[in-house]
């Protein structure tokens, strides 16, 4: 199977072409404002490098920060009407109460809190108020609100009212983009509602972006399915991404960690991604990034998305070096201006890259411009950079025992030899394109998070029901049903709840359907 993985970062767009598990070619090109033309350039280059014809490619996987940037910058977002199915409950905290004042007016399209929702045990909280839903729709129609987010209390226990409400909204507002909370988030009404709102708001951009990718690929002669990578490093089919763009919002760090795992064959290791400006250190556990316990803030909006637990600090190839009594490296960087600013490239700034060149770790630019950088000073600076990585690494490690470390990213040329606290420090081939490779090898997942009561049933039956729902979602997202396996299952006993209620979060993962 021939796959192309693309990672669109703030500065660079990386592409990798893989046949099975062989990396045939990797390229780096500049990210463009429209995203699509940069992706097309990278794909064309990677195909040319490997002398592979576009028609032979079986799948293209793209990881992009496009949707994240849209939220952070408040651009390309649409107004969203929020329909909360809640009965009398929850009215003390209306929708969007914890949104930043900058973003709220851009997205706010009017909220209706109406009868509906269920209790933790699935019993009805209030009957669905069809009349109120229709009235809200009339208001949204008058205001030409193009997207609607529907969020029901305990939608994860019973999603039926959300589905029913969606049918009514579709009837009243034909063509409106409707996002349902039970397909988006986890338990926690406000953060799930927020994520659903963001998704609805990104819907138009999602359709446009995917549409632009499709036409660009047709122009390139690619005739294969398109996938986008999600926050957890797994894939979703393009038609799914059009409806759930919010799932792509934090896929960047995940892709490079998954790529590191693939390139080394290690499933439990520290991944040190040294870029131009920052170094990101995260932990691979069973082949996937360890996630943060609290939900991600996206453009200042609290959501309950799980994102990798990555520690980011100011050290990279572009870090500015200041000699003196106590010389420093970073945290500031020349960033994407490295090719102009670094001394070795004819610029005026001593950077971490110049140190690596002076120390002979890498052959770049004009080394003679660095004759004033003594070998002693270069070694001292390299040791200092290594020590700062080692300090963060020690904080991130699960225990004091040495663990393997994988160095990826263009800036990892700065690090030589064994890092303290590691059993081995690997810099695999293609380390500079681990992110694109991570996108190319991504699998397909399905996830469910729900509160279940064990009253009148056994724990095994209850867990199996959750897992099979997750399986169904994975297959829907493009997984080969025969390869789907349980990746994680988390049971949280719920204090103070009767009937032995537990919260079960299950995730299954499978190979992409050929």
């Amino acid at each position, binding site marked *: 199977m021939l796959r192309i993985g693309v990672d669109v970062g703030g500065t660079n767009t990386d592409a990798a072409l893989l046949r099975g598990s062989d990396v045939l070619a990797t390229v780096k090109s500049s990210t463009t404002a429209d995203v699509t033309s940069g992706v097309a350039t990278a794909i064309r280059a990677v195909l040319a490098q490997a002398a592979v014809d576009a028609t032979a490619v079986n799948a293209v996987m793209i990881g992009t920060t496009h949707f994240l940037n849209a939220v952070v910058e408040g651009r390309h977002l649409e107004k969203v009407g929020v329909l909360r199915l809640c009965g009398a*409950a929850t*009215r*003390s*905290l209306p929708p969007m109460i914890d949104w930043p004042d900058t973003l709220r007016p851009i997205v706010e399209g009017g909220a209706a809190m109406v009868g509906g929702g269920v209790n933790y045990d699935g019993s009805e909280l209030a009957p669905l108020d069809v009349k109120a839903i229709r009235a809200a729709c009339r208001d949204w129609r008058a205001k030409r609100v193009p997207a609607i987010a529907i969020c029901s*209390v305990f939608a994860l226990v019973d999603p039926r009212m959300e589905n029913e409400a969606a049918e009514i909204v579709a009837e009243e507002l034909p063509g409106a983009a409707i996002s349902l909370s039970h397909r988006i988030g986890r338990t926690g009404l406000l953060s799930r509602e927020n994520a659903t709102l963001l998704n609805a708001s990104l819907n138009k951009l999602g359709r446009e972006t995917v549409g632009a990718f499709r036409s660009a690929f047709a122009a390139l002669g690619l005739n294969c399915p398109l996938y986008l990578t999600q926050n957890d490093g797994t894939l979703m089919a393009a038609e799914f991404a059009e409806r759930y763009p919010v799932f792509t919002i934090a896929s960047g760090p995940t892709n490079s960690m998954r790529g590191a795992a693939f390139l080394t064959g290690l499933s439990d290791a520290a991944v040190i991604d040294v870029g131009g400006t920052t170094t990101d250190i995260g932990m691979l556990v069973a082949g996937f990034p360890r996630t943060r316990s*609290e939900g991600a803030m996206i453009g200042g909006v609290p959501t309950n998305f799980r994102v990798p637990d990555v520690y980011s600090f100011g050290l990279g190839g572009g870090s500015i070096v200041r000699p003196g009594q106590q010389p420093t490296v970073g945290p500031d960087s020349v960033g994407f201006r490295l090719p102009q600013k670094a001394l070795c490239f004819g610029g005026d700034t001593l950077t971490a890259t110049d140190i690596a060149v002076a120390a002979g770790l890498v052959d770049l630019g004009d080394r003679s411009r660095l004759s004033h950088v003594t070998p002693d000073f270069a070694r001292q600076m390299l040791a200092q950079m290594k020590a700062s990585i080692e300090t963060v690494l020690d904080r991130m490690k*699960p225990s004091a025992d040495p663990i393997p470390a994988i160095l990826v990213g263009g800036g990892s040329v700065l690090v030589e030899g064994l890092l303290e606290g590691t059993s081995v420090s690997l810099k695999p081939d293609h380390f500079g394109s681990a992110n694109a490779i991570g996108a190319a090898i991504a699998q397909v997942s399905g996830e469910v998070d729900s509160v279940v009561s064990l009253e009148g049933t056994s724990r095994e039956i209850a867990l199996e029901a959750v897992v099979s729902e997750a399986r169904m979602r994975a297959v829907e997202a493009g997984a080969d049903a025969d390869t789907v396996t349980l990746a994680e299952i988390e049971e949280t006993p*719920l*204090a103070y709840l009767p009937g032995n209620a537990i919260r079960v979060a299950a995730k299954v993962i499978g190979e992409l359907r050929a």
Partner: protein
Amino acid sequence: MKYWTLTEADIDRIAIGCGILGTGGGGSTYHGSLRAKALLREGKRIRMVRPEDMTPDAQILGLGGIGAPTVGVEKIAEGGEGVRLLHALERHLGRKVDALLGDEVGGGNGIAPMLTAAMVDLPVVDADGMGRAFPEVQMTTFFIHGQAVQPAGLADADGNVLIVTEATTPKMLEKLLRAGTIAMGCTALMTTAPMSGDFVRRFGVPHTTSQAWSLGDAVLAARAAKADPLEAILKQSGGVRLMRGKVTDISRRVMAGFTRGKLTVAGLDADAGRSLTVEIQNEYLIAREGEKIITMVPDLICIVDSETGRAIGTEELRYGLRIDVLSIPAPVLLRSEIALESVGPRAFGYDFDFVPMGVSADAPAVPHYKEDA
């Protein structure tokens, strides 16, 4: 009368402090502080009053949330629960209530009475019945010192109000309220019997909202100065750091309706090579290093994020989390012989007597109290 009228910035500080005083339980302060700030923006006011300034015969009502925090994040409060409960109780008593207070300063309940107070414009007493969080209703200095068992009550989001007019013991009251809470969908607002100003002055843990504010203020100041938030917390609370480390093991299970578990922390930095275990029953109860018990309930064991000083609840604990474990001496009222019967180690099933860690000192009121408002 001197009042302290809260601002949105005060709410942020109090929320951080209530989180720390929650000793791992008490529920999140997030919803409460969002709601409190929304009420202030609507033009409502939240006024605190010191217990020593209350008239002896003032009627004071304790309010707080009861139920499963996991339900509370989904079926959020309607907002008028406290007002309905207050009015129902006033009708039952045949007299007006003069001020509100929280039974439990730790966690979300440290903010809960302020929300109702803002809606009916009653002051909130700067005192509580725990000085921290405990799992059960009867574990307050008020009940320990003979607060009446009835009337007590519950109100839910849907408009149901339950008044308990007779209960034989505080423990029985707790059972009745739990049963009512379950019927209400596992989340409700609760009140216990009204208390006099004199009773609260004598048996309330004084100035705990002030204490929460001071802790929160210290944390925010440390963050702004890029200083160690834990040092700020210790300086403010008279506590000691038990360990800086990372979570290497966490086990949790539910027994008899409560989360029980054990946390293992491996030391980092200056504490490298040491290891601490913390035993959990909804709250952090016992800290041991090897066989030696370092801190035991009712002294406070608090866990905060090493970098931000944010309190970490028992439900958030997970492998690899970098935390500081600290211990704060319990308020004077919790260490008396009679209090230890209800909230000492034996009350939680341990077979040993309470040994104090450090010297108890009640927190001073913040200097923000001003004549009338």
